[in-house]
């Protein structure tokens, strides 16, 4: 049992022998601040982050489906461009999931109100733009034939 005697002692020393070991979880920017919230809130935050990951995954899957159709049905390269943008946007939302989790967990530990979900308007706008692009492509294809 190492207790890191060189560290500036937290309240673990005052809690007595039955106390849990000091919290050394990473990232320290989250677990180093504030107090442990109700674990159900942490679980809910984890599920929210996973929902963002799945949103990004949905965008990636849509892009993969688009580029598959484009190559199997020999569609125009414009569809491939849309597919690549959707895939990269999905990767971006997976990264945003991590940022949002960290921000929310910090706010909960400090007892502050949760920050606004800044990724949400970006997501809505992005999905709207992608949908319009695909619809525009479909309309021009119908127009040409």
């Amino acid at each position, binding site marked *: 049992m190492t207790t890191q005697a060189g560290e500036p002692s937290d309240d673990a020393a005052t809690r007595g022998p039955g106390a849990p070991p000091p919290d050394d979880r990473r990232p320290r920017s989250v677990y180093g601040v504030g107090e442990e919230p109700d674990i159900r809130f*942490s679980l809910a935050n*984890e599920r929210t982050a996973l929902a963002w990951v799945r949103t990004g995954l949905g965008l990636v899957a849509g*892009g*993969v489906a688009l580029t598959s159709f484009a190559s199997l049905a020999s569609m125009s390269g414009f569809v491939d461009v849309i597919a690549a943008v959707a895939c990269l946007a*999905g*990767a971006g939302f997976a990264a945003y999931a991590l940022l949002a989790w960290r921000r929310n967990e910090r706010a909960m530990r400090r007892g502050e109100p949760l920050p606004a979900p800044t990724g949400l308007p970006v997501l809505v706008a992005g999905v709207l733009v992608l949908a319009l692009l695909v619809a525009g492509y479909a309309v021009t294809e119908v127009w040409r034939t």
Partner: protein
Amino acid sequence: MTSAARDPGLQPERTALAWQRTVLGVVIGSVLLAAVNLRVGQPVLSVLAGALAVATLVPAVLRPPSGGLPRDGRLHSWGFLVRVASLVGVLGFLGAASAVVSLL
């Protein structure tokens, strides 16, 4: 710590299910990408996507990120979240690469 008591809202169970469908989604996505690339004639991208599916599935089977309450009541979400987000990021880049390759 009251971790022995069952949460009536079943939060740990819901979190475990959220993990499972996320991992399942990544696996299905990479298998699809591998199959499509095989069909289109891009064996390198196909192998990479297949490796991604294996890399997602094997750790999830060997050590499922259960989302259940640990004995000391301390969650270790960050490592698991970073891993699954990185897998989705890699899948996104593979998908984009496959779109760019078919564009060329």
